[in-house]
């Protein structure tokens, strides 16, 4: 019985994810695209719940749906001018892109469907946060610190890049 409800949840979430991702790509107004992107990210958090990854679901909603979408909306508001209804158009490589994507889909789908995956030996342990914290701060502590430095560097770099640069230009001239 539980398997049926997991299957229902999976198919509902998968349909939401694929439809909202298609809308992200197809819509002509980029603000609408970003709103559908938030829908896509939230339903992906639900998908992580069906995979017994509750900490990751929370991180997904916080970081992607909360932070990334809002940041992109702010970026759009800082740069877009004129008619918002035609801010997200296709270029003239659509057919070549569709060909590449079809190739990728056929290869990935074929490999995923034909590889004999091992069935799960046992269930995922209940305490996901404790287990992630244990390996994050023991075996993978150096990648953890490197990720912290990466975030700091990205923060400083983003401020430096987005800063007004007129004074530096005047000085160089």
């Amino acid at each position, binding site marked *: 019985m539980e398997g049926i409800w997991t*299957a229902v949840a*999976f198919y509902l979430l*998968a349909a939401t*994810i*694929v439809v909202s*991702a298609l809308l*992200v*790509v197809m819509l002509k107004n980029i603000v609408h*695209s*970003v709103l559908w*992107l938030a829908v*896509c990210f939230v339903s*992906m958090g639900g*998908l*992580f719940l069906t*995979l017994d*990854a509750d900490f*990751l679901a929370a*991180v*997904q909603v916080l*970081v*992607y749906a909360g*932070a*990334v979408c809002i*940041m*992109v909306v702010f*970026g759009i508001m*800082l*740069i*877009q*001018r004129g008619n918002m209804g035609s801010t997200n158009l296709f*270029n003239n*490589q*659509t057919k070549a*892109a*569709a060909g590449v994507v079809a190739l*990728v*889909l056929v290869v*990935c*789908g074929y490999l*995923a*469907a034909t590889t004999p*995956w*091992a069935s*799960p*030996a*046992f*269930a*995922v*342990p209940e305490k*996901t946060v404790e287990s*992630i914290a244990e*390996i994050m701060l023991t075996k993978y502590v150096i990648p953890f610190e490197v*990720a912290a430095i*990466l975030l700091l560097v*990205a923060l400083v770099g*983003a*401020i430096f*890049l*987005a800063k007004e640069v007129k004074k530096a230009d005047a000085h160089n001239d």
Partner: protein
Amino acid sequence: MLTTISLAHYMVLSALLFGIGLFGVLAKKNAIAVLICIELMLNAVNINLVAISKYLTPALFTGQLFAIFVITVAAAEVGVGLAIIIAIYRNRLSVNLDDFDWLKW
């Protein structure tokens, strides 16, 4: 068969999402739209990582940890990418990728 969700289901969903993102990256004019579609591709990879972590190595949690690192890198990438786009917009007054042709000759 239809009611038991296997690893292959998640793999196919992830491949679909990756394909949609790849199509957007290749076929969109707006630089911010390309950035958004890169996020979609990274999320497809995350689904794969977590699904493999559940179905193949349930006790190790390496897949989930790696997904967290991917989320970290994606957040940093969006921040720097938007800053670059804003800086370019100041020079060119455009976010159309076809206008970014400084390296052409």
